């Protein structure tokens, strides 16, 4: 049972390890699907939007994670510095 849980968790983390990235990709695909369904931008423009959207999502995910970790690191450093002064 424990193995089954671990397998399911592994499969889940394969595709949804980063919740924000997952949500953004799915939202982008839905948007592009709607644009395709409306058919107002031809059949190539939605592809360009999909490509640029994916590149933007990767950039945002990387920069966001780096900033989050930097913020955590500086908070830990300040806490450690404060403890040192006491």
């Amino acid at each position, binding site marked *: 049972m424990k193995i089954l849980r671990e397998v399911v968790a592994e499969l889940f983390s394969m595709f949804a390890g980063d919740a924000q990235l997952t949500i953004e990709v*799915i939202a982008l695909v839905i948007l592009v699907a709607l644009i395709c369904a409306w058919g107002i931008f031809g059949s190539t423009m939605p*592809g360009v939007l999909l490509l640029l959207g994916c590149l933007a999502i990767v950039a945002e995910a990387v920069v966001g994670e780096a900033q989050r970790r930097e913020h955590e690191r500086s908070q830990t450093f300040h806490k450690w510095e404060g403890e040192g002064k006491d």
Partner: protein
Amino acid sequence: MLNLIQWNVAAPTILAAFLASTVEVVEAFTIVLAVGTIRGWRPAWSGVVAALAVLALIVALLGPLLNRFPLQDLQLVIGVLLLLFGMGWLRKAILRSGGVIALHDEMAIFAQEAAALERNRSQNWIAGLASFKAVLLEGLEVVFIVIAVGSGRGLLLPAAMGAFAACIAVLSVGFIIHKPLSRVPENTLKFAVGVILSSFGIFWTGEGLGITWPGQDAVLLVFATLFLALGLALAGKLRRASRQSLT
């Protein structure tokens, strides 16, 4: 048999399956080697054989289902899954390359697994279970990769050949050196695989949505170039920021 033109179409699929599977097989090999070295090869091989049997069963049960889906729906589902998987790998590989998160260390994983096995010396089945779990989990990823890069255009056989070649390559090198494959440039491989899978993801998602790609399959090269350029630029920016924060 695949003729020359089909080989040209199949080459990116084989390469993607080979590179991605290499990463997975290296990870599974490290655990199996730890089990074999610390607790003997009988539990290690038992775990491997049991996991391969489960994987074969999963493929045999789920494989025929793939033919029941309309091709365009299958391309869309596989495309979105590839985007999630590939972009997730690419994100992590960029962060590792930029020094934000630690690199995957096969020697450290081997030592950690060996220490855990030493602690549980009395129960042999735990060692077999560790081997089984590693092969099953990494094997599931290999199965997904083969399906994802191969099923969109009926290239399951070339994709499976790429994955099989990766197994043979890793196991041959591992058998010769009998140590964790710590010198495999795992993050570089993950970076490349992230780029390739993300490119395939955009392509299949687009095909599934009815988008017409200019240049058809050749557009994959454009996608890969853009993802690679973005990844390298971001990794370089992170490394510079990391150096500045240290000085």
